[in-house]
């Protein structure tokens, strides 16, 4: 038999989260916690399909509007904004730490990138001076990747005042902001509030790119629905940018999947469903906030060392960087059966009120006794 033409191909590195899911799946401990996943869970730690989504699916099913034709790109030139429905794809230069897939995306897009400081392990908060200084030092006209709200993986967002300063620096250096907005409505529970960073920049007349995702805020993970928006200074620029985006999309996947887009359009375009969506967002964001509060209260009650655990309630969104080192994280996993990603990110969605005490015990033990 001739040898394979692909015999020299090596084994690619596995997706980091797979190992966690598998280990968690194999773990038989009754109190085990999966804090590595990036999806919303109910108080019963089950996946959640939004009511507005179910309603939309039923409507779509009845009216038979499905699969009919290739879905055309949508454009609104009137607001000088070219947006194309895409899977979720984007390219740029980024923060440390940031979503694990950002560097891969930039590498494959052959966009050179470097990092700006963001996370301060001492305060378990924002390294604002480091951030500003690094953005200032970047060559003029660089793209700057910004998380619109609920920073992944840290849960740390700039304050409104800090956003103003960030915008000042970016404007001064003629940088181009690229916002990654994955949690609009899902962070604070309010759609408008979570868009305020993006709107602050747009209100200044700046040009920017915004990548949106409906995976979390509409629970449409597997439908692959999002959008790339390019806000340009003229309708003419927007037209040309759109034409180039279409060219790229055509050679990558031709046109986007219609199902998720129809659901979103149905919900966002119908005022009753939109209101109902906002209520569900408040429920989801509310549950996460109440878990944060409960965890914090448990930690305060049980830990008399004076350690400041308040970062848990200062962080926003699904994730928190718990500020644990490797030994401490291993202790969490091996002794307490609490699973989180290797970089120390934990997903609060994997926690129920009932498990907060146990989790608090795990943190206290790991923080103080593992080194």
């Amino acid at each position, binding site marked *: *038999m*001739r*040898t*394979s*033409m*692909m015999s020299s191909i*090596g*084994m*690619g*590195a*596995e*997706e980091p989260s797979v190992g966690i899911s598998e280990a968690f799946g194999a773990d038989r401990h009754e109190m085990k916690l999966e804090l590595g996943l990036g999806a919303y869970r109910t108080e019963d730690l089950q996946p959640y*399909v939004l009511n507005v*989504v179910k309603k939309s*699916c039923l409507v*779509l*099913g009845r009216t*038979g509007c*499905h*699969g*009919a*034709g*290739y879905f055309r790109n949508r454009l609104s030139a009137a607001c000088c904004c070219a947006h194309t429905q895409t899977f*979720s*794809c984007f390219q740029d230069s980024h923060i440390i730490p940031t979503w694990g897939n950002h560097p*891969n*995306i930039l*590498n*494959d*897009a052959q966009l050179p990138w470097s990092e700006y400081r963001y996370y301060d392990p001492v305060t378990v908060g924002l390294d604002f001076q480091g951030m500003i200084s690094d953005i200032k030092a970047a060559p003029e*006209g660089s793209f700057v990747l910004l998380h619109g709200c609920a920073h992944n993986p840290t849960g740390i967002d700039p304050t409104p005042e800090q956003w103003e300063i960030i915008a000042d620096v970016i404007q001064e250096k*003629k940088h181009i902001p690229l916002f990654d907005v994955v949690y609009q409505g899902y962070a604070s529970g309010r759609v408008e509030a979570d868009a305020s960073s993006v709107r602050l920049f747009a209100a200044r*007349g700046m*040009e920017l790119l915004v990548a949106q995702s409906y*995976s979390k805020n509409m629970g*449409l*993970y*597997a*439908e*692959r629905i999002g959008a790339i928006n*390019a806000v*340009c*200074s*003229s309708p003419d*620029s927007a037209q*040309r*940018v759109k*034409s*180039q985006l*279409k*060219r790229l999309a*055509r*050679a*990558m*996947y*031709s046109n986007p*999947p*219609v*199902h*998720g887009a129809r659901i979103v359009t149905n919900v966002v375009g119908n005022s009753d469903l939109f209101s109902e969506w906002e209520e569900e967002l408040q429920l989801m964001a509310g549950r996460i906030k109440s878990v944060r509060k409960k965890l914090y209260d448990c930690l305060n009650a049980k830990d008399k060392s004076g350690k400041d655990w308040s970062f848990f309630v200062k962080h926003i969104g699904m994730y928190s960087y718990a500020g644990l080192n490797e030994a401490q994280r291993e202790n969490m996993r091996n002794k307490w059966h609490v699973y989180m990603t290797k970089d120390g990110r934990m997903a609060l969605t994997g926690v129920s009120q009932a498990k907060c005490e146990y989790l608090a015990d795990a943190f206290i033990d790991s923080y103080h006794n593992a080194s």
Partner: protein
Amino acid sequence: MSDSVFASVVQAPEDPILGEGKPLVLNVVRKAEQMLVNDQSRVKEYLPITGLADFNKLSAKLIFGANSPAIQENRVTTVHVSGTGSLRVGAEFLARHYHEKTIYIPQPTWGNHPKVFTLAGLSVKSYRYYDPSTRGLDFSGLEDLGSAPSGAIVLLHACAHNPTGVDPTSDQWEQIRQLMRSKGLLPFFDSAYQGFASGNLDADAGSIRLFVADGGECLAAQSYAKNMGLYGERVGALSIVCKTADVATRVESQLKLVIRPMYSNPPIHGPSIVATILKDGDMYTEWSVELKAMADRIISMRQQLYDALCARGTPGDWSHIIKQIGMFTFTGLNTNQVAFMTKEYHIYMTSDGRISMAGLSSRTVPHLADAIHAAVNSVA
């Protein structure tokens, strides 16, 4: 106001093809969708990077045959992507991991092929395929493959060649297979019309199965856009048939690294519909019946158009209309004649003379025949 940072971006040319379309929604698809909607236990969690496992296995069986030794020996890795996406992911994988970066595409081919492969990082060359004088296959032109460097990738349309509708015969496929294997060329099949071409799912996969049967390697991109009418759902699959199970495992791991930074994981809705249909015996049968009806309708349009042109005494040999197969016919009309038909008869078609038979009905065939007749008689 300062200049836009995008000021130097030029307007890209419009895509020549994508525009209006009114496809049929198959009854069996509606049924499958209703079942999915009614199933309250279904969630929308992320799929694995490679997509729905069920769907992948069923797609591989559909194209390679349920008893394919390649499948039984675990030598096939399959990922769910759209049809276009399958081509792009396959091409990116080859551009990164395969030792030959040139792909040979037939002349002519689907307008998007060169763009997909070029942007994926492959170098694109072509091989002669269509003979305008016979409106058939330029079989001797396949010599171009004979002079390709060993290991080069070759794009083959599995059936119902787009845009010409001209397919090799079984004997010709066998000769192509022997030539390619002797030169160590890597086949990359684009299968967009399985079942939709002849009306028979197995027959339309014949070319691919011929290659797989010899134990060799190949890539196959499948699409369910046409044969299941799932255009907008973006459902297809990329399969890579490898020499050994070990190679297949490594190839799969590398495919995941191509996919993750590109789009993370695929959409769930479309493949769920397909899997629902493929795994249910009754629904599968119902689908094959609907598919045959679609294919038969197109074959009937071909016959009607041919008969209408003969009846009008339109100059020329129009037998290629009934010899060609699938959705498209390369009429042989030139760009001036096409422009004439658009202007005078409001017939819309691509300027290379390609018509989509799916766009015809018994009612409209006479009008098209009149237009062709007039064009041939009045425009050189």
